[in-house]
């Protein structure tokens, strides 16, 4: 049994829109992330997948639930404070829009070295600059980019810099929130390969949030499907794509356009009506490792 790195239990997060309206962005979500695994989280916009990521990173304080990182309850203020440095270095997040998540007025070298500077970590390779150069090389860019500004880079290169910055802390967990959504197809492939490399060669555990199911299928070991704040299905990738159980998962999979004109034009599509959705069901393990949100048949 692989070690559980991250344990999420009954996580819920409610946003108050006004005095009289609230939105259940995340609703009773439970899952585990094992060490060395890439877990995909898919769902449409507004399904709550980014909110989950932010809760995991202590950006939002969820309304209910428990999140344990290596046994540490990160939602407990005191426990968080005690393990602060470990939590802030071992967990790193990468956002979709690297154009706005990188400081436009900082050079690439400073962007990559900033976390080390903040956490007073002695750079293992001598100076901060050498460390930045090393990380940059790791993500496939040479040292000539060190003195450039983010605006001089392409979208794919900026995303590489964001990854290099995250890697500089030698994290165990990378949370990647739609990291390839705004990139071109051929560049997406490069970044996905980079994630795969990080995982295979260095054992990083990755929570990979995306809406491109084809990429998720290629990259992830297990996949969780979210809909309207609930996790509706969670299973190993091959099983989820081969034998989807929840009606929404079936609809979602049938909607992925397959790049082959004959197959695609003759493929049946399953529709999912919003009204069919029973959000009060129980998240049940139907076969080992395959969880499905089942209708409450009380």
């Amino acid at each position, binding site marked *: 049994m692989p070690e559980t790195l991250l344990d999420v239990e009954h996580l819920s997060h409610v946003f108050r829109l006004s005095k009289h*309206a*609230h939105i259940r962005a995340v609703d009773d979500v439970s899952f585990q992330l094992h060490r060395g695994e890439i877990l995909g989280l898919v769902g449409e916009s507004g399904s709550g997948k980014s909110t989950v990521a932010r809760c995991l990173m202590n950006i939002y304080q969820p309304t209910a639930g428990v999140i344990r990182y290596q046994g540490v309850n990160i939602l407990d203020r005191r426990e968080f404070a005690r393990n602060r440095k470990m939590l802030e270095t071992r967990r790193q997040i990468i956002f979709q829009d690297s154009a706005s998540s990188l400081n436009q007025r900082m050079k690439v070298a400073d962007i990559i070295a900033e976390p080390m500077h903040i956490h007073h970590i002695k750079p293992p390779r001598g100076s901060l600059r050498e460390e930045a150069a090393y990380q940059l090389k790791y993500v496939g860019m040479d040292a000539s980019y060190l003195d450039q500004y983010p605006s001089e880079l392409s979208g794919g290169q900026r995303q590489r810099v964001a990854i290099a910055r995250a890697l500089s802390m030698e994290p165990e967990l990378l949370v990647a929130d739609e990291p390839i959504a705004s990139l071109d197809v051929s560049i997406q492939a490069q970044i996905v390969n980079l994630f795969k490399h990080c995982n295979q060669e260095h054992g990083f555990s990755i929570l990979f949030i995306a809406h491109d199911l084809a990429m998720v299928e290629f990259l992830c070991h297990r996949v969780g499907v979210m809909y309207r704040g609930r996790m509706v299905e969670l299973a190993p990738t091959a099983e989820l794509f081969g034998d989807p159980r929840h009606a929404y998962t079936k609809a979602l999979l049938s909607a992925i356009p397959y790049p082959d004109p004959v197959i695609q034009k003759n493929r049946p599509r399953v529709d999912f009506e919003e009204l069919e959705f029973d959000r009060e069901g129980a998240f049940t393990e139907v076969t080992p490792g395959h969880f499905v949100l089942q209708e409450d048949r009380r």
Partner: protein
Amino acid sequence: MMKQNLLLYWGKKALVFLVSVMVLSVAVFYISRLAPGDPLMSYYGERTEKMSVEEKEAAREKLGLNDPIHVQYVRWLQNALKGDFGISYKYKQDVTEVIGSRIGNTLILGGIGFVLTFLGALGLGILCAWHEDKWPDQLLCKGGTLLSCIPEFWLSLVMILVFSVTLQWLPSSGAYDVGHKHDILNRAEHLILPLTVVVLEHLWYYAYMIRNKLLEETRADYVLLGKAKGLSKKKILLGHCLRNSLPSYISLMAISVPHVLGGTYIVEKVFSYPGIGTLSFESAQYHDYNLLMVLCMLTGIVVILGNLIGGIINERIDPRIKAAEVTETSEVTWD
């Protein structure tokens, strides 16, 4: 929105208004009394110089000028709440009467000036946006900037010099000639020059605002869709862009009432136009406390109201602001 909330909303606005007015009255009251000079001068005029020290003291006592300022303020407030704003030292008349005889003139000048500015700026703004970066736009942009750099009093003086002194086409001062109080034509003749200055000074600023707002709107995606569906430039600019720009323009204009008003005061002074502006100037010059107080309050209230109304229009008129909260399908629960 529910009734209770509506009440709360207006209650808040009213409270803001009342507190602002109170603060304003205290400030004006203190500052006017701290200014150097002798209020007796305005009441007794030349005679003050001939009065003995005792007589002066008695006069001060009579006018209540010897009490500490806060006592004077409370007394003024008590009377004011009863509707008694005291008498003007200079005119020896009820303050309300003095103002009543002048306010009409200012309302005519300021009101017409404001409406002309509002409409003129709208027209010019549309004209410029229509011909973006072509010569009419360039000309108006550059000429307008130049024009709004000219101080009001100087422009007024030049106007008087040209149209009254040299050409002798128009009168240079007053609201009407003696004996023509009810002669509309005569009044209109007197209005032309001050009105021109008021409008010319402010027109450009607002025209520029509406031009930029319109051009900003024309960059929006829906304009491209409008073009794609075959709408004419006129329909897009007037039916879509102007419609979307008007709310913010109207609220801007509401906020700018005092701005235009301030300009009117200076113009009134230069043209010796018998309005609130000249009166305010005199009352400050002669330490006519009661008159000054009411004039300042009046102006202040207009300013505060203008800002409040501008804000309210801004909040209400644009459906996007009301709407921001919910789209049709979002998972929202109302309790």
